[in-house]
Protein backbone atom coordinates (compact mmCIF):
# COMPACT_ATOMS: atom_id res chain seq x y z
CA UNK A 1 0.00 0.00 0.00
CA UNK A 2 2.68 2.50 1.06
CA UNK A 3 4.97 1.41 -1.74
CA UNK A 4 2.13 1.95 -4.21
CA UNK A 5 1.66 5.42 -2.79
CA UNK A 6 5.36 6.21 -3.17
CA UNK A 7 5.40 4.85 -6.71
CA UNK A 8 2.34 6.95 -7.43
CA UNK A 9 3.93 10.10 -6.06
CA UNK A 10 7.08 9.33 -8.01
CA UNK A 11 5.21 8.88 -11.30
CA UNK A 12 3.10 11.90 -10.40
CA UNK A 13 6.24 13.97 -9.85
CA UNK A 14 7.27 13.30 -13.43
CA UNK A 15 3.79 14.28 -14.64
CA UNK A 16 3.99 17.38 -12.48
CA UNK A 17 7.30 18.47 -14.00
CA UNK A 18 5.92 17.98 -17.51
CA UNK A 19 2.63 19.65 -16.59
CA UNK A 20 4.56 22.73 -15.48
CA UNK A 21 5.71 23.19 -19.05
CA UNK A 22 2.15 23.01 -20.35
CA UNK A 23 0.72 25.27 -17.72
CA UNK A 24 3.41 27.95 -17.89
CA UNK A 25 3.24 28.18 -21.66
CA UNK A 26 -0.54 28.23 -21.53
CA UNK A 27 -0.51 30.89 -18.84
CA UNK A 28 1.73 33.21 -20.78
CA UNK A 29 1.07 32.53 -24.45
CA UNK A 30 -2.49 31.21 -24.07
CA UNK A 31 -1.68 28.24 -26.26
CA UNK A 32 -1.47 24.48 -25.80
CA UNK A 33 1.98 23.36 -26.78
CA UNK A 34 1.24 19.78 -27.82
CA UNK A 35 4.84 19.35 -28.94
CA UNK A 36 5.86 19.48 -25.28
CA UNK A 37 5.64 15.69 -24.89
CA UNK A 38 8.03 15.21 -27.78
CA UNK A 39 10.54 17.57 -26.25
CA UNK A 40 10.62 15.06 -23.38
CA UNK A 41 11.46 12.34 -25.86
CA UNK A 42 14.24 14.43 -27.39
CA UNK A 43 15.58 15.04 -23.88
CA UNK A 44 15.58 11.30 -23.29
CA UNK A 45 17.46 10.62 -26.51
CA UNK A 46 20.01 13.33 -25.75
CA UNK A 47 20.74 11.86 -22.35
CA UNK A 48 20.85 8.40 -23.93
CA UNK A 49 23.32 9.48 -26.62
CA UNK A 50 25.65 11.32 -24.29
CA UNK A 51 25.83 8.45 -21.80
CA UNK A 52 25.74 5.44 -24.13
CA UNK A 53 27.69 6.74 -27.11
CA UNK A 54 29.94 9.35 -25.55
CA UNK A 55 30.26 7.73 -22.15
CA UNK A 56 29.53 10.93 -20.24
CA UNK A 57 28.75 10.78 -16.53
CA UNK A 58 25.20 11.36 -15.35
CA UNK A 59 25.23 15.03 -14.37
CA UNK A 60 26.87 16.39 -17.55
CA UNK A 61 24.59 14.34 -19.75
CA UNK A 62 21.50 15.63 -17.93
CA UNK A 63 22.81 19.16 -18.31
CA UNK A 64 23.49 18.45 -21.98
CA UNK A 65 19.94 17.18 -22.48
CA UNK A 66 18.58 20.28 -20.73
CA UNK A 67 20.66 22.62 -22.88
CA UNK A 68 19.56 20.98 -26.11
CA UNK A 69 15.90 20.96 -25.07
CA UNK A 70 16.04 24.58 -23.91
CA UNK A 71 17.38 25.63 -27.28
CA UNK A 72 14.89 23.39 -29.04
CA UNK A 73 12.08 25.00 -27.07
CA UNK A 74 13.21 28.51 -28.02
CA UNK A 75 13.66 27.42 -31.64
CA UNK A 76 10.18 25.87 -31.84
CA UNK A 77 8.67 29.03 -30.40
CA UNK A 78 10.57 31.29 -32.80
CA UNK A 79 9.94 29.30 -35.96
CA UNK A 80 6.53 27.78 -35.39
CA UNK A 81 4.57 29.85 -32.89
CA UNK A 82 5.90 33.39 -33.04
CA UNK A 83 4.69 34.02 -36.60
CA UNK A 84 1.24 32.97 -35.38
CA UNK A 85 1.14 35.30 -32.37
CA UNK A 86 -1.95 37.05 -33.69
CA UNK A 87 -3.49 34.06 -35.46
CA UNK A 88 -6.52 32.18 -34.18
CA UNK A 89 -5.87 29.71 -31.39
CA UNK A 90 -7.01 26.88 -33.66
CA UNK A 91 -4.19 27.62 -36.13
CA UNK A 92 -1.67 27.59 -33.28
CA UNK A 93 -3.08 24.32 -31.96
CA UNK A 94 -2.80 22.62 -35.33
CA UNK A 95 0.74 23.96 -35.67
CA UNK A 96 1.62 22.51 -32.29
CA UNK A 97 0.33 19.10 -33.38
CA UNK A 98 2.36 19.48 -36.56
CA UNK A 99 5.51 20.27 -34.59
CA UNK A 100 4.80 17.21 -32.46
CA UNK A 101 4.67 14.92 -35.50
CA UNK A 102 7.71 16.62 -36.96
CA UNK A 103 9.78 15.89 -33.86
CA UNK A 104 8.55 12.29 -33.68
CA UNK A 105 9.44 11.65 -37.30
CA UNK A 106 12.81 13.34 -36.99
CA UNK A 107 13.56 11.02 -34.09
CA UNK A 108 12.34 8.10 -36.20
CA UNK A 109 14.77 9.05 -38.97
CA UNK A 110 17.72 9.55 -36.66
CA UNK A 111 17.28 6.77 -34.11
CA UNK A 112 14.88 4.40 -35.98
CA UNK A 113 11.81 2.86 -34.40
CA UNK A 114 13.73 0.20 -32.46
CA UNK A 115 13.39 0.78 -28.74
CA UNK A 116 16.64 1.79 -27.09
CA UNK A 117 17.50 0.47 -23.66
CA UNK A 118 17.94 3.53 -21.51
CA UNK A 119 20.95 3.31 -19.18
CA UNK A 120 20.28 3.47 -15.46
CA UNK A 121 21.04 7.03 -14.49
CA UNK A 122 20.53 6.52 -10.77
CA UNK A 123 23.08 4.07 -9.46
CA UNK A 124 22.08 4.19 -5.85
CA UNK A 125 20.98 1.35 -3.58
CA UNK A 126 17.27 1.00 -2.94
CA UNK A 127 16.02 2.10 0.43
CA UNK A 128 14.47 -0.50 2.69
CA UNK A 129 12.15 0.63 5.47
CA UNK A 130 10.79 -2.34 7.42
CA UNK A 131 9.49 -4.70 4.81
CA UNK A 132 8.95 -2.09 2.14
CA UNK A 133 11.54 -1.50 -0.51
CA UNK A 134 11.57 1.91 -2.12
CA UNK A 135 13.47 2.25 -5.35
CA UNK A 136 16.16 4.91 -5.40
CA UNK A 137 14.78 6.14 -8.72
CA UNK A 138 11.49 6.98 -7.04
CA UNK A 139 13.26 8.89 -4.29
CA UNK A 140 15.46 10.82 -6.70
CA UNK A 141 12.40 11.67 -8.81
CA UNK A 142 10.45 12.97 -5.84
CA UNK A 143 13.39 15.01 -4.57
CA UNK A 144 14.04 16.44 -8.03
CA UNK A 145 10.38 17.41 -8.28
CA UNK A 146 10.39 19.14 -4.88
CA UNK A 147 13.58 21.04 -5.71
CA UNK A 148 12.17 22.16 -9.06
CA UNK A 149 8.94 23.32 -7.46
CA UNK A 150 10.75 25.37 -4.86
CA UNK A 151 13.12 26.99 -7.34
CA UNK A 152 10.33 27.70 -9.79
CA UNK A 153 8.05 29.19 -7.15
CA UNK A 154 10.82 31.44 -5.87
CA UNK A 155 11.70 32.38 -9.43
CA UNK A 156 8.20 33.38 -10.45
CA UNK A 157 7.38 35.26 -7.26
CA UNK A 158 10.65 36.85 -6.23
CA UNK A 159 12.63 37.75 -9.33
CA UNK A 160 12.03 40.49 -11.84
CA UNK A 161 11.86 38.01 -14.71
CA UNK A 162 9.33 35.87 -12.90
CA UNK A 163 7.24 38.92 -12.15
CA UNK A 164 7.49 39.99 -15.77
CA UNK A 165 6.22 36.53 -16.72
CA UNK A 166 3.21 36.88 -14.48
CA UNK A 167 2.57 40.39 -15.72
CA UNK A 168 2.66 39.23 -19.34
CA UNK A 169 0.31 36.38 -18.54
CA UNK A 170 -2.17 38.87 -17.09
CA UNK A 171 -2.06 41.67 -19.63
CA UNK A 172 0.37 41.57 -22.54
CA UNK A 173 -0.51 45.05 -23.75
CA UNK A 174 -0.07 46.75 -20.40
CA UNK A 175 3.18 44.86 -19.78
CA UNK A 176 4.50 46.06 -23.11
CA UNK A 177 3.57 49.64 -22.28
CA UNK A 178 5.54 49.30 -19.06
CA UNK A 179 8.61 48.45 -21.13
CA UNK A 180 8.55 44.67 -20.74
CA UNK A 181 9.78 42.73 -23.73
CA UNK A 182 6.87 40.34 -24.24
CA UNK A 183 8.58 38.23 -26.93
CA UNK A 184 11.65 37.68 -24.79
CA UNK A 185 9.45 36.75 -21.87
CA UNK A 186 7.54 34.20 -23.94
CA UNK A 187 10.82 32.76 -25.23
CA UNK A 188 12.06 32.47 -21.68
CA UNK A 189 8.92 30.60 -20.68
CA UNK A 190 9.39 28.11 -23.49
CA UNK A 191 13.04 27.74 -22.51
CA UNK A 192 12.19 26.98 -18.89
CA UNK A 193 9.40 24.59 -19.85
CA UNK A 194 11.61 22.71 -22.29
CA UNK A 195 14.52 22.54 -19.85
CA UNK A 196 12.15 20.98 -17.33
CA UNK A 197 10.91 18.60 -20.03
CA UNK A 198 14.49 17.32 -20.45
CA UNK A 199 14.71 16.54 -16.73
CA UNK A 200 11.32 14.84 -16.93
CA UNK A 201 12.55 12.85 -19.94
CA UNK A 202 15.56 11.55 -18.06
CA UNK A 203 13.51 10.68 -14.98
CA UNK A 204 10.82 9.01 -17.05
CA UNK A 205 13.26 6.93 -19.04
CA UNK A 206 15.10 5.92 -15.89
CA UNK A 207 11.87 4.65 -14.38
CA UNK A 208 10.65 3.01 -17.62
CA UNK A 209 13.88 2.31 -19.48
CA UNK A 210 12.70 1.90 -23.06
CA UNK A 211 13.16 4.81 -25.40
CA UNK A 212 11.21 5.17 -28.66
CA UNK A 213 10.24 8.14 -30.81
CA UNK A 214 6.73 7.89 -29.33
CA UNK A 215 7.93 7.70 -25.75
CA UNK A 216 6.91 11.28 -25.01
CA UNK A 217 3.44 11.16 -26.49
CA UNK A 218 1.49 9.37 -23.77
CA UNK A 219 3.19 11.04 -20.77
CA UNK A 220 2.71 14.33 -22.63
CA UNK A 221 -1.02 13.82 -22.89
CA UNK A 222 -1.26 12.60 -19.31
CA UNK A 223 0.68 15.62 -18.08
CA UNK A 224 -1.61 17.86 -20.10
CA UNK A 225 -4.49 16.12 -18.37
CA UNK A 226 -2.75 16.79 -15.06
CA UNK A 227 -2.40 20.47 -15.90
CA UNK A 228 -6.11 20.73 -16.76
CA UNK A 229 -6.95 18.65 -13.69
CA UNK A 230 -5.11 21.08 -11.43
CA UNK A 231 -6.32 24.16 -13.28
CA UNK A 232 -4.42 25.12 -16.38
CA UNK A 233 -2.35 28.27 -16.05
CA UNK A 234 -1.76 27.68 -12.34
CA UNK A 235 1.69 26.48 -11.27
CA UNK A 236 0.62 24.96 -7.92
CA UNK A 237 -2.29 23.42 -9.83
CA UNK A 238 0.10 21.63 -12.18
CA UNK A 239 2.05 20.23 -9.25
CA UNK A 240 -1.07 19.03 -7.43
CA UNK A 241 -2.71 17.72 -10.59
CA UNK A 242 0.42 15.83 -11.63
CA UNK A 243 0.93 14.13 -8.29
CA UNK A 244 -2.75 13.21 -7.88
CA UNK A 245 -2.82 11.83 -11.39
CA UNK A 246 0.23 9.66 -10.70
CA UNK A 247 -1.29 8.29 -7.51
CA UNK A 248 -4.63 7.60 -9.23
CA UNK A 249 -2.87 5.81 -12.06
CA UNK A 250 -0.77 3.56 -9.83
CA UNK A 251 -3.69 2.74 -7.53
CA UNK A 252 -5.90 2.07 -10.51
CA UNK A 253 -3.27 -0.31 -11.86
CA UNK A 254 -2.81 -2.04 -8.53
CA UNK A 255 -6.35 -2.42 -7.32
CA UNK A 256 -8.65 -2.20 -10.31
CA UNK A 257 -7.12 -3.18 -13.61
CA UNK A 258 -3.81 -2.70 -15.33
CA UNK A 259 -5.47 -2.34 -18.68
CA UNK A 260 -8.06 0.13 -17.48
CA UNK A 261 -5.66 2.39 -15.58
CA UNK A 262 -5.50 5.03 -18.31
CA UNK A 263 -9.26 4.96 -18.67
CA UNK A 264 -9.60 5.51 -14.93
CA UNK A 265 -7.24 8.48 -15.07
CA UNK A 266 -9.23 10.18 -17.80
CA UNK A 267 -12.54 9.29 -16.15
CA UNK A 268 -11.40 11.10 -13.02
CA UNK A 269 -10.47 14.09 -15.14
CA UNK A 270 -13.92 14.16 -16.69
CA UNK A 271 -15.59 14.01 -13.29
CA UNK A 272 -13.42 16.84 -11.94
CA UNK A 273 -14.17 18.97 -14.96
CA UNK A 274 -17.90 18.39 -14.56
CA UNK A 275 -17.82 19.34 -10.90
CA UNK A 276 -15.25 22.14 -11.19
CA UNK A 277 -14.70 23.18 -14.78
CA UNK A 278 -11.69 25.38 -14.00
CA UNK A 279 -9.76 22.49 -12.46
CA UNK A 280 -8.83 21.99 -8.83
CA UNK A 281 -6.90 25.22 -8.29
CA UNK A 282 -8.08 27.11 -11.34
CA UNK A 283 -9.57 30.50 -10.70
CA UNK A 284 -12.84 31.60 -12.08
CA UNK A 285 -12.50 34.40 -14.57
CA UNK A 286 -13.97 37.41 -12.86
CA UNK A 287 -16.33 39.24 -15.11
CA UNK A 288 -16.32 42.97 -14.83
CA UNK A 289 -19.76 44.47 -14.89
Amino acid at each position, binding site marked *: MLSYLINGISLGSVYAIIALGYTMVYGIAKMLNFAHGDVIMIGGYMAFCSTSYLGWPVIPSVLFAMTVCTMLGILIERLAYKPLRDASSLAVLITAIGVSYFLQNMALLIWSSNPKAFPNMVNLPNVVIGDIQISSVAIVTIIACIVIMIILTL*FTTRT*KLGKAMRAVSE*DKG*AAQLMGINVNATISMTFAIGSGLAAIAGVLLCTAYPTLMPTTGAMPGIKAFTAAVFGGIGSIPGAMLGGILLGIIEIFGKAYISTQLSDAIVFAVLIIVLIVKPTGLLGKKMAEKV
Partner: protein
Amino acid sequence: MSNKDIKLVQLPSPNFVPERDKDKPLMLEVSHLGIDFGGLTAVNEFNIGISPTEIAGLIGPNGAGKTTVFNLLTKVYEPTRGTILLDGKDTHGMNTIQVNQAGIARTFQNIRLFDKLTVEDNVKIGLHNSIKYHMPTGVFRLPKYWKEEKKAHDKAMELLSIFDMQDMAGYIAGSLPYGAQRRLEIVRALATGPKLLLLDEPAAGMNPSETSELMENIEKIRDEFKIAILLIEHDMNLVMGVCESIAVLNFGEIIAKGTPNDIQNNPKVIEAYLGSGSINGGEKEGTLPDSSDASKPDAEQMSTGHLASPDAMIGGRKEES
Protein backbone atom coordinates in the same frame (compact mmCIF):
# COMPACT_ATOMS: atom_id res chain seq x y z
CA MET B 1 -23.40 63.53 -7.90
CA SER B 2 -21.17 65.34 -10.25
CA ASN B 3 -17.84 66.72 -9.24
CA LYS B 4 -18.93 70.17 -10.25
CA ASP B 5 -19.98 71.18 -6.77
CA ILE B 6 -16.56 71.28 -5.18
CA LYS B 7 -13.71 73.44 -6.37
CA LEU B 8 -10.81 73.30 -4.01
CA VAL B 9 -7.64 73.82 -5.98
CA GLN B 10 -6.37 77.16 -7.05
CA LEU B 11 -5.82 77.83 -10.70
CA PRO B 12 -2.21 78.25 -11.69
CA SER B 13 -1.58 81.33 -13.73
CA PRO B 14 -2.19 80.45 -17.36
CA ASN B 15 0.67 82.68 -18.45
CA PHE B 16 3.16 81.14 -16.15
CA VAL B 17 3.92 78.11 -18.26
CA PRO B 18 5.44 79.59 -21.38
CA GLU B 19 7.61 81.78 -19.19
CA ARG B 20 9.05 78.96 -17.15
CA ASP B 21 9.82 76.70 -20.08
CA LYS B 22 10.39 79.49 -22.55
CA ASP B 23 14.01 78.80 -23.40
CA LYS B 24 13.80 75.02 -23.24
CA PRO B 25 13.15 72.79 -26.22
CA LEU B 26 9.80 71.04 -26.32
CA MET B 27 9.52 67.65 -24.65
CA LEU B 28 6.94 66.44 -27.11
CA GLU B 29 6.45 67.83 -30.56
CA VAL B 30 3.79 66.19 -32.67
CA SER B 31 3.13 67.35 -36.17
CA HIS B 32 0.56 66.30 -38.75
CA LEU B 33 -0.16 63.13 -36.81
CA GLY B 34 -2.93 61.01 -38.25
CA ILE B 35 -4.26 57.49 -38.47
CA ASP B 36 -6.82 55.80 -40.70
CA PHE B 37 -8.61 52.62 -39.76
CA GLY B 38 -9.60 51.25 -43.12
CA GLY B 39 -11.53 54.12 -44.67
CA LEU B 40 -12.15 55.88 -41.38
CA THR B 41 -9.87 58.73 -40.41
CA ALA B 42 -9.75 58.51 -36.63
CA VAL B 43 -7.18 61.22 -36.04
CA ASN B 44 -6.04 63.81 -38.55
CA GLU B 45 -3.63 66.76 -38.57
CA PHE B 46 -2.92 66.47 -34.88
CA ASN B 47 -0.33 69.04 -33.88
CA ILE B 48 0.74 69.66 -30.32
CA GLY B 49 3.79 70.85 -28.46
CA ILE B 50 4.41 70.19 -24.80
CA SER B 51 7.21 71.84 -22.87
CA PRO B 52 9.38 69.88 -20.39
CA THR B 53 7.41 70.68 -17.24
CA GLU B 54 4.04 71.51 -18.67
CA ILE B 55 0.72 70.02 -17.63
CA ALA B 56 -1.37 69.85 -20.77
CA GLY B 57 -4.93 68.67 -21.20
CA LEU B 58 -6.61 66.91 -24.08
CA ILE B 59 -10.37 67.19 -24.00
CA GLY B 60 -13.21 66.54 -26.37
CA PRO B 61 -16.53 64.75 -26.63
CA ASN B 62 -16.68 60.96 -26.39
CA GLY B 63 -15.31 59.28 -29.49
CA ALA B 64 -13.30 62.34 -30.51
CA GLY B 65 -10.12 60.28 -30.72
CA LYS B 66 -8.39 61.24 -27.49
CA THR B 67 -7.39 57.73 -26.45
CA THR B 68 -6.38 57.02 -30.05
CA VAL B 69 -3.91 59.90 -29.75
CA PHE B 70 -2.46 58.21 -26.64
CA ASN B 71 -2.27 54.93 -28.51
CA LEU B 72 -0.43 56.67 -31.33
CA LEU B 73 2.02 58.34 -28.97
CA THR B 74 2.78 55.01 -27.26
CA LYS B 75 2.85 53.16 -30.61
CA VAL B 76 0.04 50.81 -29.73
CA TYR B 77 -1.07 51.96 -33.17
CA GLU B 78 1.42 52.87 -35.85
CA PRO B 79 0.58 56.34 -37.16
CA THR B 80 -0.49 56.56 -40.81
CA ARG B 81 0.93 60.07 -41.11
CA GLY B 82 2.96 62.56 -39.18
CA THR B 83 5.91 62.67 -36.84
CA ILE B 84 6.29 62.40 -33.09
CA LEU B 85 9.42 63.98 -31.67
CA LEU B 86 10.11 63.02 -28.08
CA ASP B 87 12.78 65.19 -26.55
CA GLY B 88 13.92 65.99 -30.07
CA LYS B 89 14.11 62.31 -31.05
CA ASP B 90 11.90 60.91 -33.79
CA THR B 91 9.99 57.89 -32.51
CA HIS B 92 9.32 56.65 -36.03
CA GLY B 93 10.02 52.93 -36.28
CA MET B 94 10.10 52.44 -32.52
CA ASN B 95 7.81 49.89 -30.92
CA THR B 96 5.85 50.23 -27.70
CA ILE B 97 8.71 49.00 -25.54
CA GLN B 98 11.24 51.34 -27.13
CA VAL B 99 8.90 54.30 -26.78
CA ASN B 100 8.49 53.46 -23.11
CA GLN B 101 12.24 53.30 -22.67
CA ALA B 102 12.60 56.56 -24.56
CA GLY B 103 10.42 58.17 -21.94
CA ILE B 104 6.67 57.91 -22.46
CA ALA B 105 4.60 56.17 -19.80
CA ARG B 106 0.85 56.02 -19.53
CA THR B 107 -2.16 54.97 -17.53
CA PHE B 108 -5.34 53.53 -18.93
CA GLN B 109 -8.92 54.69 -19.19
CA ASN B 110 -10.13 51.33 -17.93
CA ILE B 111 -7.63 50.43 -15.24
CA ARG B 112 -5.16 47.81 -16.40
CA LEU B 113 -3.20 46.85 -13.34
CA PHE B 114 -1.74 43.41 -12.88
CA ASP B 115 -4.57 42.41 -10.58
CA LYS B 116 -3.05 39.23 -9.22
CA LEU B 117 0.27 40.81 -8.31
CA THR B 118 0.85 42.78 -5.14
CA VAL B 119 0.94 46.57 -5.14
CA GLU B 120 4.71 46.51 -4.71
CA ASP B 121 5.17 44.02 -7.56
CA ASN B 122 3.07 46.19 -9.85
CA VAL B 123 5.45 49.05 -9.21
CA LYS B 124 8.39 46.72 -9.70
CA ILE B 125 7.03 45.77 -13.12
CA GLY B 126 7.38 49.45 -13.95
CA LEU B 127 10.92 49.32 -12.61
CA HIS B 128 11.67 46.20 -14.69
CA ASN B 129 14.16 47.83 -17.01
CA SER B 130 16.02 49.61 -14.23
CA ILE B 131 16.57 46.39 -12.27
CA LYS B 132 19.70 44.92 -13.74
CA TYR B 133 20.44 41.23 -13.39
CA HIS B 134 20.16 38.19 -15.59
CA MET B 135 18.29 34.95 -15.24
CA PRO B 136 21.03 32.80 -13.62
CA THR B 137 21.58 35.52 -11.01
CA GLY B 138 17.87 35.35 -10.23
CA VAL B 139 17.68 31.56 -10.13
CA PHE B 140 20.72 31.11 -7.91
CA ARG B 141 20.09 34.29 -5.92
CA LEU B 142 23.61 35.59 -6.20
CA PRO B 143 24.62 38.68 -4.19
CA LYS B 144 23.75 40.93 -7.11
CA TYR B 145 20.18 39.64 -6.98
CA TRP B 146 19.78 40.73 -3.36
CA LYS B 147 21.39 44.09 -4.03
CA GLU B 148 19.23 44.87 -7.04
CA GLU B 149 16.02 43.62 -5.45
CA LYS B 150 16.73 45.70 -2.36
CA LYS B 151 17.26 48.73 -4.54
CA ALA B 152 14.02 48.02 -6.39
CA HIS B 153 12.14 47.60 -3.12
CA ASP B 154 13.40 50.93 -1.79
CA LYS B 155 12.59 52.67 -5.03
CA ALA B 156 9.10 51.13 -5.13
CA MET B 157 8.42 52.29 -1.58
CA GLU B 158 9.67 55.76 -2.37
CA LEU B 159 7.35 55.97 -5.37
CA LEU B 160 4.40 54.61 -3.40
CA SER B 161 4.99 57.28 -0.79
CA ILE B 162 3.90 59.94 -3.29
CA PHE B 163 0.35 58.81 -2.67
CA ASP B 164 0.97 57.56 0.88
CA MET B 165 0.47 54.01 -0.28
CA GLN B 166 3.45 52.35 1.44
CA ASP B 167 1.11 50.54 3.85
CA MET B 168 -0.65 48.89 0.94
CA ALA B 169 2.54 47.48 -0.61
CA GLY B 170 1.69 43.89 0.30
CA TYR B 171 -1.93 43.98 -0.85
CA ILE B 172 -3.07 42.28 -4.03
CA ALA B 173 -3.62 45.07 -6.55
CA GLY B 174 -7.01 43.75 -7.64
CA SER B 175 -8.34 44.04 -4.10
CA LEU B 176 -7.61 47.76 -3.76
CA PRO B 177 -10.42 50.30 -3.79
CA TYR B 178 -11.02 52.01 -7.10
CA GLY B 179 -9.33 55.30 -6.29
CA ALA B 180 -6.24 53.54 -4.98
CA GLN B 181 -6.06 51.45 -8.15
CA ARG B 182 -6.01 54.63 -10.23
CA ARG B 183 -3.26 56.06 -8.05
CA LEU B 184 -1.28 52.83 -8.29
CA GLU B 185 -1.47 53.01 -12.07
CA ILE B 186 0.13 56.43 -11.93
CA VAL B 187 2.86 55.15 -9.61
CA ARG B 188 3.51 52.19 -11.89
CA ALA B 189 3.81 54.51 -14.88
CA LEU B 190 6.18 56.79 -12.97
CA ALA B 191 8.32 53.77 -12.09
CA THR B 192 9.34 53.41 -15.72
CA GLY B 193 11.11 56.76 -15.40
CA PRO B 194 9.20 58.76 -17.99
CA LYS B 195 9.87 62.24 -19.31
CA LEU B 196 6.28 62.49 -20.44
CA LEU B 197 3.42 60.99 -18.47
CA LEU B 198 0.14 60.31 -20.23
CA LEU B 199 -2.87 60.08 -17.95
CA ASP B 200 -6.02 58.69 -19.52
CA GLU B 201 -8.97 59.93 -17.45
CA PRO B 202 -7.16 59.81 -14.12
CA ALA B 203 -10.20 61.11 -12.22
CA ALA B 204 -12.82 58.84 -13.79
CA GLY B 205 -14.96 57.39 -11.05
CA MET B 206 -13.31 59.40 -8.30
CA ASN B 207 -15.33 61.32 -5.75
CA PRO B 208 -14.85 65.09 -5.50
CA SER B 209 -12.40 64.96 -2.63
CA GLU B 210 -10.34 62.28 -4.35
CA THR B 211 -10.35 64.40 -7.50
CA SER B 212 -9.09 67.49 -5.74
CA GLU B 213 -6.43 65.41 -4.03
CA LEU B 214 -5.47 64.02 -7.43
CA MET B 215 -5.13 67.53 -8.80
CA GLU B 216 -2.67 68.44 -6.07
CA ASN B 217 -0.80 65.22 -6.72
CA ILE B 218 -0.55 65.81 -10.45
CA GLU B 219 1.17 69.10 -9.74
CA LYS B 220 3.31 67.52 -7.06
CA ILE B 221 4.43 64.84 -9.50
CA ARG B 222 5.30 67.46 -12.11
CA ASP B 223 7.29 69.46 -9.56
CA GLU B 224 9.12 66.51 -8.03
CA PHE B 225 9.89 64.52 -11.14
CA LYS B 226 10.26 67.52 -13.47
CA ILE B 227 8.27 65.83 -16.19
CA ALA B 228 5.65 66.86 -18.68
CA ILE B 229 2.13 65.54 -18.22
CA LEU B 230 -0.56 65.18 -20.84
CA LEU B 231 -3.94 64.19 -19.53
CA ILE B 232 -7.29 63.24 -20.98
CA GLU B 233 -10.13 64.10 -18.68
CA HIS B 234 -13.83 64.76 -18.74
CA ASP B 235 -13.91 66.37 -15.34
CA MET B 236 -13.82 70.05 -16.26
CA ASN B 237 -12.83 71.11 -12.75
CA LEU B 238 -9.72 69.05 -12.98
CA VAL B 239 -8.88 70.07 -16.52
CA MET B 240 -9.45 73.75 -15.95
CA GLY B 241 -7.82 73.62 -12.54
CA VAL B 242 -4.63 71.79 -13.28
CA CYS B 243 -3.86 72.13 -16.98
CA GLU B 244 -1.77 75.00 -18.16
CA SER B 245 -2.71 74.49 -21.75
CA ILE B 246 -5.58 72.62 -23.31
CA ALA B 247 -6.21 71.15 -26.72
CA VAL B 248 -9.75 70.28 -27.75
CA LEU B 249 -10.29 67.37 -30.08
CA ASN B 250 -13.45 66.79 -32.06
CA PHE B 251 -13.91 64.17 -34.79
CA GLY B 252 -10.19 63.46 -34.70
CA GLU B 253 -9.07 67.03 -35.29
CA ILE B 254 -7.95 69.75 -32.96
CA ILE B 255 -10.57 72.49 -32.99
CA ALA B 256 -9.03 74.73 -30.36
CA LYS B 257 -5.88 75.16 -28.35
CA GLY B 258 -5.00 77.59 -25.61
CA THR B 259 -5.10 78.43 -21.95
CA PRO B 260 -8.07 77.25 -19.90
CA ASN B 261 -9.52 80.74 -20.23
CA ASP B 262 -9.29 80.75 -24.00
CA ILE B 263 -10.91 77.35 -24.18
CA GLN B 264 -13.80 78.20 -21.91
CA ASN B 265 -14.80 81.10 -24.09
CA ASN B 266 -14.13 79.52 -27.46
CA PRO B 267 -17.38 79.28 -29.42
CA LYS B 268 -16.16 76.26 -31.41
CA VAL B 269 -15.54 74.32 -28.21
CA ILE B 270 -18.92 75.22 -26.81
CA GLU B 271 -20.50 74.10 -30.04
CA ALA B 272 -18.64 70.78 -29.97
CA TYR B 273 -19.81 70.09 -26.45
CA LEU B 274 -23.34 71.36 -26.66
CA GLY B 275 -24.28 71.20 -30.32
CA SER B 276 -24.72 74.15 -32.63
CA GLY B 277 -28.19 75.08 -31.38
CA SER B 278 -27.04 76.21 -28.00
CA ILE B 279 -24.79 78.92 -29.38
CA ASN B 280 -27.82 81.11 -29.65
CA GLY B 281 -29.17 80.03 -26.31
CA GLY B 282 -27.63 82.87 -24.37
CA GLU B 283 -24.11 83.47 -23.25
CA LYS B 284 -24.34 82.15 -19.76
CA GLU B 285 -25.60 78.71 -20.71
CA GLY B 286 -23.07 78.39 -23.43
CA THR B 287 -20.05 78.81 -21.23
CA LEU B 288 -17.94 75.95 -20.02
CA PRO B 289 -17.64 75.84 -16.26
CA ASP B 290 -14.98 78.19 -15.10
CA SER B 291 -13.14 77.11 -12.03
CA SER B 292 -11.63 80.54 -11.57
CA ASP B 293 -15.09 81.52 -10.45
CA ALA B 294 -14.93 78.93 -7.73
CA SER B 295 -14.91 81.56 -5.06
CA LYS B 296 -18.45 82.66 -5.88
CA PRO B 297 -20.49 79.52 -6.16
CA ASP B 298 -24.00 80.50 -7.14
CA ALA B 299 -26.69 78.03 -7.93
CA GLU B 300 -27.09 79.12 -11.50
CA GLN B 301 -23.48 78.55 -12.38
CA MET B 302 -23.53 75.12 -10.90
CA SER B 303 -26.46 74.14 -12.99
CA THR B 304 -24.83 75.43 -16.13
CA GLY B 305 -21.77 73.51 -15.08
CA HIS B 306 -23.79 70.35 -15.32
CA LEU B 307 -25.25 71.37 -18.62
CA ALA B 308 -22.05 72.45 -20.22
CA SER B 309 -20.11 69.29 -19.65
CA PRO B 310 -22.31 66.28 -20.11
CA ASP B 311 -19.23 64.09 -20.02
CA ALA B 312 -18.32 65.26 -16.56
CA MET B 313 -21.63 63.88 -15.40
CA ILE B 314 -20.98 60.60 -17.10
CA GLY B 315 -17.63 60.54 -15.41
CA GLY B 316 -19.38 61.19 -12.14
CA ARG B 317 -21.84 58.38 -12.63
CA LYS B 318 -19.20 55.77 -13.29
CA GLU B 319 -18.28 55.52 -9.65
CA GLU B 320 -21.80 54.49 -8.72
CA SER B 321 -22.00 51.59 -11.12
